[in-house]
Every structure is written in structure tokens, then in C-alpha cells.
């Protein structure tokens, strides 16, 4: 069974909504939740997730809200915090680790903390029983793939194309996936640009997909109620989960 990882932006439109949506996604068959930490300058993200980040901050999102809401979510579904490095650095990695442990969160995805800079933090994260997810990009040469893949745990986040989240691009990933498989048995999940139309194609040869912008687009839809948003996101999650396992 191929896995589905869902990204949602914490605190938009509200914290209560984030909690309800997370639990609904679990019901819908999502295997892992990427709980997005809103950041003022999300440079790896496209316009959709950037907008959700900024709106959540405008609504008064604070890190303490993340810690609090995670306590209701993480016991129900495998949860990772996805966020840019500065809040981790500023508040302290040790503090994030302690909060993650107390909420039951299983690890972190930090898109602007590449392998080299992550070395300083990996031992403390691993020692705490948490995982820092590694990224591999289609621009990576063989030597770099080997270096990253060797240590990778839980799953490898394979970036689907050179670009930012939510763009309609695609690249042939066959060679990259084959190289990764040479060095590790860790699962490979593809993220960036995955939606109900592309999921089947993008899941070929890998163990799962990561979906963000397709869900967040629904979160941003002003024309429907919160209830309808949750229904719509859940339905989309079910559809994608079934498509990747056809």
C-alpha cells in the first residue's frame, strides 16, 4: 500500500479547524500529517502555501499554538512538524525537541536545512527518538544522493522538480529514484506538485506521495464554510490515496 502524507498550514483559518481537519484526514486514510509551521518568508513555497502562511500569522499564530494543537493531533495520527529553520534556531532546537516529545510529534521536516547544516542537529534529534527528514532533489548528482540517502530515516522527501511547491511542473525521476534505491531501503515519497490529477503518475516507482498545495487551495477558498472545507479536503485525500494504489 502506497502512503499519503498531507501538509496543512497550522492556524488557518483557525486552530480549532486545524485540529478537526487533522483528525478528518486521519479518517480519510492519510498516513502521515505534515503540520506546517507558518513562517513570514517561506521561500521554498509557491503562492498558495505562502498565502496560507501569511494569513495564519495575520490571524495571530504563535509557536505556543502549534505546541498546544499538536497535543490533540499527534496521538491520533503520525505527525511531523514542517517549518523553516529560523523559528527552530531562534527558539532553540532543544525546545522544539522537548515540545515534540511532550505532544507525541515524531519528527521535523525543515526545507531550508540541507544535509551539511543539519549535521549539527541530527544527533540530538535522533537521540530523542525523533526523525529529521532528508530531502533529495532532481538536481542532485550521484555522490550527493549517496551521502544523503545513506543516513536517511523514516522516508526520503524526493522533490518532484526543480522549483517551488504547487507548480505544475514535472521531471523524469526514474534515474534519481534508482540511485536512491542503490543506497538505502528507506521509503521514498515524492512531493511538490502532487494533486488528484498527477498523483498516480508521480507515485510510480516510489512508496508514497506528499500533497500540500492541493489541500491548502481548499483551505483558502472563501466561498465555502469550514465544514465544507473539511469535507472537500477529506474527499480529495481519499481520492488521491485510492489513485496511488490503483
Amino acid at each position, binding site marked *: 500500500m502506497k502512503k499519503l502524507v498531507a501538509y496543512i498550514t497550522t492556524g488557518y483559518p483557525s486552530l480549532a479547524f486545524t485540529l478537526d481537519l487533522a483528525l478528518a484526514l486521519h479518517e480519510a486514510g492519510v498516513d502521515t500529517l505534515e503540520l506546517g509551521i507558518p513562517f513570514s518568508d517561506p521561500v521554498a513555497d509557491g503562492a498558495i502555501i505562502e498565502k496560507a502562511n501569511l494569513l495564519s500569522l495575520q490571524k495571530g499564530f504563535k509557536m505556543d499554538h502549534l505546541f498546544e494543537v499538536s497535543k490533540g493531533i499527534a496521538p491520533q495520527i503520525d505527525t511531523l512538524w514542517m517549518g523553516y529553520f529560523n523559528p527552530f534556531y*531562534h*527558539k532553540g532546537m532543544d525546545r522544539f525537541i522537548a515540545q515534540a516529545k511532550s505532544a507525541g510529534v515524531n519528527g521535523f521536516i525543515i*526545507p531550508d536545512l540541507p544535509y551539511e*547544516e543539519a549535521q549539527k542537529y541530527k544527533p540530538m534529534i535522533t537521540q530523542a527518538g525523533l526523525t529529521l527528514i532528508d530531502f533529495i532533489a532532481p538536481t542532485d548528482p550521484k555522490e550527493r544522493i549517496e551521502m544523503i540517502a545513506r543516513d536517511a530515516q523514516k522516508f526520503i522527501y524526493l522533490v518532484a522538480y526543480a522549483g517551488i511547491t504547487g507548480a505544475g511542473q514535472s521531471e523524469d525521476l526514474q534515474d534519481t529514484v534508482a540511485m536512491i534505491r542503490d543506497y538505502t531501503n528507506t521509503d521514498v515519497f515524492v512531493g511538490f506538485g502532487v494533486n488528484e490529477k498527477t498523483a498516480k503518475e508521480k507515485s510510480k516507482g516510489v512508496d508514497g506521495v506528499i500533497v500540500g498545495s492541493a489541500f491548502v487551495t481548499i483551505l483558502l477558498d472563501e466561498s465555502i464554510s469550514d465544514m465544507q472545507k473539511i469535507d472537500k479536503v477529506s474527499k480529495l485525500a481519499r481520492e488521491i490515496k485510492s489513485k496511488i494504489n490503483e
Partner: protein
Amino acid sequence: MNIDYTPNDIYIPSPSDFDPDNLGHFGIYGGRYVPETLMPVLEALKSDYEKIRFDKEFWEEVHYYYKNYVGRPSSLYYAKNISDEIGAKVYLKREDLNHTGAHKINHTIAQALLAKKLGKKKIIAETGAGQHGVATATVAALFGLECEVFMGAKDVKRQELNVFRMKLLGSKVHAVESGSKTLKDAMNDAIRHWVTHARDTFYVIGTVAGPHPYPMMVRDIQSVIGWEAKAQMMQTHGKLPDKVIACIGGGSNAMGIFNHFLNEKDVECIGIEAGGLGLDSKHGCSLAKGSPGVLHGQLSYLLQDEDGQIEEAHSISAGLDYPGIGPEHAFLKDKGVVTYDHITDDEAMEAFVWLSQKEGIIPAFESSHAIAYLKKLKNVEGQTILINLSGRGDKDMIQAKDILKERFE
């Protein structure tokens, strides 16, 4: 002291005591904090830059354009009238006389030649005041490269002349509407574009910031300023200055003039941040009021809140309106090698008028911060002060007219 070169010689960077480690760390600062897609690109740039860093042939080509196109060496001017007024000897390093009006052309020439050498046909840049954007658009025209410039929508408005110049030069200008709509957001979008076009696009970063090797590379290139100034000081004045002053946004003109003075024990380097409306209000003083953090690919001082969200900077000058600073400055501050202070919008505007009327030189708003510090300094009697006049004020005329209309109409 003896200087064994003249300002007319070919400038080639030299290793610095403050060079970063192999991963680009200046102490804890610097590094590479970028999406994985860019890491191989930065690795390649690092090794490509290492190949040309001390390569005579490459710098000979740069020299050709510096001499014949930019007008280097830029002159060192003894500003007698303001010197008489404050009782110190003030020398101005006239980067304002460069082609395109500021020091930015120094690093765009060298970076574009590097891009060309690497076979890249497209270049991109972020810009605040528009000076770096114009300098990049200029070299794009010169070397036949395709160029796109990212500029905050707020800056597009306050620097409309530079926007027009970029378009006239054949570049595409993107007005960035997100966040504070200034330099920070322009850089976000430039990075997004770069990630998307990583394989064929060279990012011409406009200051000593960003992921390694940019902070070191841009500092090496801009150090032609201090290298010339040192020789010129010896030629015209017979000794080195007591103080060297430069304004700081990202910090390229300051690193450029400081670098060759950092090992001179008797020379004090002073960097001037944008004090905006004052340190208790809105400003751009990341060193004075910020704390270490990660933005735009580097670890350095940042204006941020308790959660690590980036705060908006403010300065009357678009070029200093940035919540971060180059990582080497952060390192030099912590080490106590360079002194840092600030000048407010009002003080800068006073200096803008002062230099215009006393010396007949209209400085850029950015450079006016460095000039203003002459009046803030205490006990300068008899001292020799070298100021990097990093740019001219032409680009600021519309804004200046608006601010000063009651005084001059």
C-alpha cells in the same frame, strides 16, 4: 607603511584572515540554508569560484571593463569644505562616479563574467534601491545575457526612475507584492525563481549576503574599493586614515572598503546601519537591535520577533531597508573588529543637503548615512577620515524633492 602597487594595477583578490571555512561559516554565521535543489548549484559555484578567485587571466578581463567601462580606479577626493567645518581631514572614495552611479557595478561586472564563463545565458537579481538592479541590467545588456530583476512593489514606486532604467536596458522587472513589498520580499521571489531555473540561471546577488560562496565572493570583488583607497591614501596623504566609514544595508560597500583595512591596528572601521525613525521605532538596525537567525540562505543578525518571524525593516533609503545583514559583518561585530553605529532618516537627510551644498556632491540616501556620521562623531579634531561615498543621489531626486520641497521651493 609601504604599498607595493598602484591603484591602476590589476586588482586580484587576496586571502583574508576572516575567510569562511569550507562550508562558508564565518564563526557561527554564514553557511548555506537553502532548499536541496540549490545545494548542487552552490557546490558547483563554490568550486568554479575557487578556480577563478586568484586567477590572473580572469581578473585581467574584469580589469579591462573596470578601467574602460566603469571608470576605475574611482577617485579619492579630499573634501576640503566639510573638512574645514568639522576640523578633520575627510577623504571621499568616489564610488558615486562609477558608471551607473554606485559601487554595485563592481560586482555585477565580475559576476556576469563568471556567469558567462560558466555558460549561463540568463541572470537574475533582487534589488532594493534599484542600484543593483540597474547595474545587473547594465551588464546583461553589455554581455548579451537575458535578465530578470525582482523588486518590492513599494520600492518600484519610490524608485521609479531606476525601474525605467532597467526596462530601457532590456531587462524584465517583477514588482513583488508579498510581505513588506521591499528588498526582503524581492529576495524571496528571486530565490523562488532561482530554485525553479536552477540549471540555467545565474543569480547575481547584490550584496555580501546569501548562501556561501556569495558573501565571500561579493566581498572579494568589492574589496577593489579599499585596495585602491589604501594606495590612494598613501599617495595623496602619505598615511592611512584613522577611521574608515561606510553605510550598511546588506553590507557590500562596507566590506568592500573595510576588507583591506581590517588588519591595520591603527585604523578603525565603522559601519553605519539605517536608524530609520529611531531605534525605539522602525529601523533597519539588525546588528544593534536584532539577534542571530536564518534568512535568505545564511545565518546572521536579523530583525525578528520572539517566534523567529522576520520583522519589517524601515529606512528612508530603499537600499538599507533590509532586516538582515551579511554574515561577515555579524562575525566582525561579535569579534569587535569593526565598530557599528546608526544614523536616522532625519540625520541622513541633513547630511544629504549638507554634502550637496558644501561640496557640490549629491550623495545617494544610503551614502548620506555614512556622511551624517561625521557630525555624530566626537573628538575628530585632527583625524583623517575615509568615507565610502557608495553612490550618487540621482536616483533619489523624486523622493528628495518630495521630502525637501518646502525648503527649496
